[in-house]
């Protein structure tokens, strides 16, 4: 298993190098190389997750190691799907190192088998987790696009064009890509949360149990809902939208990590020692 994770990390790392070469030298062959490396890593990654799932008979999100691996998988998956659809070639300079970093952390974490209660290994829990992770991966990419937007906006506003000006795409493309990621993320998050609540109602007889993860997920959802509402109603675009997508992602990170390490609740199994 370890060897596969190392292979995945190698692919993502080389992909990162290729994307940075593309950023600096602006040659399309590096971009294509980066894409191929990320796709190759993704194939290994998918294989490793399926292997684990068949091996244990459950969806592999039992310990922190598996959760991180799945988070990395979701980021790369969303990145690859979007990359084929939008012309934002430069996004790799954010997504590839992010995936590499997540996998490097994952590699350092112990992979001990934790048996969870039956409730949490059902199909509906798995679906709930997969959809939410894909949504959060979209938000992670939206945050990256937001950072790129702020860099490019700064270059144009300050009239000191420098390294990024010629290398980053137009503000319009960055803004609309960020918006696309937010829409995708918000849709997935909404569906994922709905499945969670409905399933909770089915097995525990209540939609809402005040679990900190539930509370923070709801807050995160509201942050993105506000962002989308403002965009549609008042036209929050450009800088404000970029800043908001970065703030929104900070909420995601807290809901993802902070809640598990700082608070108790029924979502905490996988980080319990």
């Amino acid at each position: 298993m370890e060897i596969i994770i190392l292979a995945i990390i190698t692919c993502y790392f080389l992909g990162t190098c290729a994307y940075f070469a593309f950023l600096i030298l602006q040659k399309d062959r590096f971009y294509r190389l980066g894409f191929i490396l990320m796709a190759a890593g993704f194939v290994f990654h998918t294989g490793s997750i399926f292997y684990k799932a068949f091996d244990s008979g459950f969806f592999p999100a039992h310990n922190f190691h598996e959760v991180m691996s799945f988070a990395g998988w979701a980021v790369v998956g969303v990145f690859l799907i979007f990359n084929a659809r939008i012309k934002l070639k430069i996004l790799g300079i954010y997504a590839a190192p992010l995936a590499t970093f997540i996998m490097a952390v994952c590699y350092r974490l112990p992979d001990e088998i934790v048996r969870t209660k039956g409730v949490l290994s059902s199909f509906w829990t798995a679906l709930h987790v997969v959809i939410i992770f894909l949504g959060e991966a979209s938000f992670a990419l939206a945050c990256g696009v937001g950072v790129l937007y702020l860099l490019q906006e700064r270059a144009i506003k300050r009239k000191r064009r420098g390294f990024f000006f010629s290398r980053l795409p137009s503000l319009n493309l960055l803004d609309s890509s960020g918006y696309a990621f937010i829409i995708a993320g918000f849709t997935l998050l909404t569906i994922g949360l709905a499945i969670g609540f409905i399933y909770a109602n089915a097995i525990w007889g209540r939609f809402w149990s005040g679990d900190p993860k539930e509370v923070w997920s709801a807050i995160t959802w509201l942050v993105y809902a506000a962002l989308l509402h403002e965009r549609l109603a008042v036209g929050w675009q450009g800088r404000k939208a970029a800043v908001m997508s970065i703030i929104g992602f900070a909420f995601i990170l807290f809901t993802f990590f902070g809640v598990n390490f700082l608070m108790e609740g029924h979502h905490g199994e996988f980080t319990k020692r």
Partner: protein
Amino acid sequence: MQQILLIGLNHKTAPVSVRECIAFSDDETAGTLSAFRKRENIKESMLVSTCNRVEFLLTTDSAEKAVESVKSVISENKTLPVSEFSDYLYIYKGEDAVRHIFLVASSLDSMVVGEPQILGQIKDAYRIATDEKTSGVILNRLMHKTFSVAKRVRTETGIGDHAVSISYAAIELGKKIFGSLHNKQTLLIGAGEMAELAVEHLIRNQATDILVANRTFERGVQLAGQYNGQAIHFDEIGRCLETVDIIISSTGAPGFVIDAATVKTCMRKRKNRPLFFIDIAVPRDIDPKINTLNNAYVYDIDDLKDVVDENIEDRNREAVKGRRIVDEAVITYLKWYESLDVIPTVVAIRNKMKQIADAEVEKTLNGLNHLSEKDTKAIQKMTEAMINKILHHPTLYLKGNGCKTDKSSAIDIARKLFHLDD
């Protein structure tokens, strides 16, 4: 051996008053080339004439006479005394001429380094020369090499990458903000040469909808007609800001025509869609504070000038790389060119024959062990004699008894027949 000769003048050596007198139209070029064909001392010729340069590229046996011919042809064609222009001419021979034409075609010798038109102009000039049948082996090869060098310089260096004119720099910035300028609405306030140039660039980039606001409405209507746009009154500008995307301003007004408060209120109405102000007026028309508002971008003339200066610097840096590519190409071309000389060609043919003969003789002798040393010598002598006899006429022909008119192409064919070059 024919010499490559280049005679010309350009924006660096001659003032525009001289250049405009000497410029050749396409028809004149054809006429001049056919005049050259009649001159004995000019073998091959072509003529490149643009607004910034006139270049005569020739091959000749006698450089001095050819220079005189060119001067007299210019003087006849343009009815100008030779003394009027001869001081402005530069004359390059051989290697220098090759390098010069490579530099010109790669746009490294242009007034604006990296401008793309020159290569097309040289291609046209070459086409006229081939139509007039004044280009031969040497110039054909030289031109093909020229085109490939120019292409390499363009693709492998960044000399053509960024805008080096104010109006074009503004368009590039617009693209960085809006992505595509397709269907973007433009408001032109006031009129001026540079503003009009920018509008033309915009139209070329498919920004179709043009509004014109001018102090005198009549002039506005006239300008709007020019761009298939619409004229508006000066006091309608505030309302227009709700819909337009790009504003180009160049009025002679002493104060700001658009202030920050106006833009701030209109931003809400336009749902924060980006606004790009191009202010080419001095004193400025657009309040620079607008640049601090979200999604509003203001570039004044100095900002644009900085962009252009920076881009020119970039291009000059890239030009160094371009020169290196040109130097490489000069070396390969000259290698081929020098091989066109008679003696090396004759020697090369002889060596090749001798190599083949020696190899075959050795093969045969290996199977004939009963022959004495004397017999072997006799056979070797015979093959040498055969080579001499076979090559006698070709050698004479190449040395000039048979091919007085176009020696270079005869040599070229000979080299191809014997496959002397790889």
